[in-house]
């Protein structure tokens, strides 16, 4: 099998703090990978490094066999590498419909048009309504983002990413900050992601991770200390020490 | 050789005056992250008060300086309280507009009170005429301006590097929230540094009055120059501001001597080049 996404020996440090220490990782079509690790392990930084939002000290990133290390973030997105943000980054003055429309227009090469309006482009409108419906936020399509609930904003982040039709999707804690009552919506959305899409998801919610992932990667202090099946991860001594120990403690103390 | 020397001393005097006036702006901009275009207005107010004190009240030069510095700080207190406080943390555009508005007001009022003419601050006997340095002579007031710049730089260095206030100030510039959580009373740090900044501006306005003459449009005319110094040096960096003042003073003065017909062309060309290469200032930290 050839990998759609391949990271080789990625390194990054901030002054004395090493946040990526020789990270290598590859994903295939249809992969469902969960990237977990304690706070400050370097998970978000890993996404920033591979998407080009932050330059690595060394290492390379390849998409479907082609090296993309030299490309900027926009070019990587156009090649199908799409991310979401740990804290939503949306345009507070715009509506969900406008967000998704902008993504569709961008993907289809029409975002530079200086005339017309997406409301008058049937194909865009169809995709917008479909995309919002798939995540159950079609009823608020025309509310300003600043006026909708945070859980719905998280769903919009996912809708936005999907509207770019990625090959590889990197989700940074898609359920973070969402009230318990709404996480099921997000989980449904995750379950409904296209089959051929390679997905890497960061999350701290172990239940969610175990239901979603077919493979778990554990990052601690910038180093991958485990890469295997969900069944094995709980048995691994190093992981338990680095992560699940804390997690179990945190859980029992609640 | 004669030209090189006089260009050099002029550049140094000009650069030092710029430094005395804008160093306060640099520190407060680094500290409060507020773009303040009204700083020059305080230098101008200082100049006006000193001129009034010497010309109308007949006070001595030293007393006039003291009076002007204190007076300007007193004028600045309500402005800081009621106007500036409301724009800390606001978008840049808001800060720009508020401080431009303030500048316009000060210009209008200064003209109403003092009239549109140039105001002079008569120098004391000792600062008039040339001083013989043995091999060359130099205008005493320029020497005085240079000395003031050196003293201010030295005093600030001591204040910031050697005192406990300096530690608090540096911590607050670095990360105000962190400093506050470590027990630094940032409000007091802000208030003191604002007062020092305004006082230094007033002082610089008086000392530099021979080079930057006091008139109502002063606040607008040099607004840009002071802002450029901060940007080129890097907000919050004292050595940066010093370097920026010396470099910009040298470029401006040399340009005026050698190619006067180009006006400030080379000055602004240099500004663009420097800012493009060092967007955070020559010695500024990455934000």
């Amino acid at each position, binding site marked *: 099998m050839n990998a759609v996404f391949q990271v080789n020996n990625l390194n990054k440090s901030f002054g004395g703090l090493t946040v990526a220490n020789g990270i290598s990782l590859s994903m295939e079509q249809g992969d469902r990978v969960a990237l977990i690790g304690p706070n400050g392990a370097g998970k978000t930084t890993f996404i920033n490094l591979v998407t080009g939002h932050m330059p690595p000290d060394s290492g390379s990133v390849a998409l479907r066999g082609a090296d993309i290390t030299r490309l900027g973030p926009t070019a990587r*997105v156009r090649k199908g590498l799409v991310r979401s943000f740990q804290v939503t980054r949306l345009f507070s003055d715009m509506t969900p419909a406008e967000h998704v429309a902008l993504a569709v227009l961008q993907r289809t090469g029409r975002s530079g048009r*200086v005339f017309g309006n997406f409301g008058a482009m049937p194909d865009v409108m169809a995709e917008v309504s479909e995309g919002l419906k798939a995540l159950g936020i079609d009823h608020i399509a025309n509310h300003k983002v600043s006026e909708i609930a945070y859980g719905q904003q998280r769903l919009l982040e996912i809708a936005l990413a999907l509207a770019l039709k990625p090959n590889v999707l990197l989700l940074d804690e898609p359920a973070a900050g969402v009230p318990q009552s709404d996480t099921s919506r997000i989980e449904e959305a995750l379950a409904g992601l296209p089959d051929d899409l390679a997905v890497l998801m960061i999350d701290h919610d172990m239940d969610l991770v175990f239901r979603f992932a077919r493979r778990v990667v554990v990052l601690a202090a910038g180093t991958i200390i485990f890469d295997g099946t969900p069944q094995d991860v709980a048995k691994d001594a190093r992981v338990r020490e680095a992560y699940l120990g804390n997690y179990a403690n945190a859980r029992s103390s609640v | 050789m004669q030209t090189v020397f006089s260009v050099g001393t002029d550049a140094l005097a000009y650069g030092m005056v710029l430094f005395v006036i804008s160093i306060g702006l640099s520190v407060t901009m680094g500290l409060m992250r507020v773009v303040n275009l009204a700083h020059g207005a305080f230098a101008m107010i200082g100049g006006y008060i000193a001129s009034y004190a010497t010309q109308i009240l007949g006070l001595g030069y030293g007393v006039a300086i003291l009076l002007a510095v204190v007076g300007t700080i007193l004028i600045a207190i309500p402005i800081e309280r009621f106007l500036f406080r409301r724009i800390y943390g606001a978008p840049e555009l808001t800060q*720009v507009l508020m401080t431009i508005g303030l500048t316009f*007001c000060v210009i209008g009022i200064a003209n109403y009170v003092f009239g549109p003419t140039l105001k002079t601050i008569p120098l004391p006997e000792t600062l008039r005429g040339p001083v013989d340095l043995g091999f060359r002579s130099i205008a005493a007031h320029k020497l005085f301006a240079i000395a003031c710049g050196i003293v201010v730089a030295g005093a600030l260095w001591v204040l910031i590097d050697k005192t406990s206030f300096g530690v608090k100030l540096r911590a607050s510039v670095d990360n105000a929230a962190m400093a506050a959580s470590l027990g630094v009373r940032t409000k007091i740090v802000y208030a003191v540094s604002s007062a020092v900044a305004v006082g230094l501006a007033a002082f610089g306005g008086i000392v530099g009055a021979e080079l930057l003459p006091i008139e109502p449009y002063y606040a607008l005319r040099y607004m840009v120059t002071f*802002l450029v110094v901060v940007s080129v040096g890097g907000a919050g960096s004292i050595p940066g501001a010093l370097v920026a003042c010396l470099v910009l003073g040298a470029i401006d003065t040399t340009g005026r001597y050698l190619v006067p017909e180009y*006006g400030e062309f080379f000055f*602004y060309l240099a*500004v*663009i080049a420097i*800012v493009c290469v060092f967007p955070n200032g020559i010695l500024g930290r990455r934000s």
Partner: protein
Amino acid sequence: MAIQRAIAAEGKVDAGPNWLLRDLMGLAAVLAVAGIGYLLFPNNLALLTRITAIALLVLSLDLVTGYCGIATLGHAALFGSGAYAAGIAAVHFDITDPFAMAAVGAVGGAAAGLLAGAIMLRGRGLAQLVLSIAIVYLFHETANKASNWTGGSDGLAGISPDPVFGIFGFDLWGRTAYVFGIAILAVVFVLLRLLVRSPFGMLCRGIREDPVRVSAMGASVNGTLLRMYAISGAVAGLGGALNAISTQVVGLDSLSFTTSAEALVMLVVGGTGSLFGALVGTLTFMWFEDFVSAINPFHWLTIIGALLIAVVLFAPNGLYGTATQLLHRVWNKR
């Protein structure tokens, strides 16, 4: 596809015939105000034409500041470049057809916009602001030095545009210039309404709010901004050309920091991020200025300063923005 219809019907995304109506009403309002001005001040058409030219500058500034979120104190560089381009074309190259001069002005402004934009995008925050100021001074000093071409500090005189369509000469009363100017403003206004609603306009609004998000959507931030700078330059350049055509001279003040700062003040007084706001701000400021500065130019500065502080503190959305907010509130109460 009920939802599709729902989106289209709700007007918020401006997808229905709603916006068309608003555009036409806006255009009608512009033309009505222009007509009233003509009737009320037939002896002051020169001022009205100047207001029209400055309105183009402020609209152009709104594109960059209001829609893309770039604070600039150097936008007159684009306006002045258009003015000088049109003036030089007329004086040195005998291009005296008013439409051709306007076109040259637009091209000159767009070129200046590209240059200014390319420099401005090197910095952020304070650095960007300082770059904008340095640019307008650099343009000013260049025009001053190149006096063979620009007339230097005496201004570029001797511009005599041909009659419009070969029929309507630029007379002493400035009637032709005024109508010519209003026609340009009306066309530009309609085009800009289309622009800000287009996908490109939406992208710019996105960049204003969060450039990182836009780049994560695969759109080029700097490319988009540069393009907007060129468009903005063309609009400002048209304003400059109009000023050159109507006054028949181009002065260094058209390239000044003061003009830049005033344009920004006008925009903020009217309300950023709205084309109507730009027009309202220009009209209010210029009319007020003419009125007050006739009495005492320094009082004018004090008043505009106080007004600016008041707007920043109490009406951050500007006159137009605050007025529409109040209207909405009254409307919703009923």
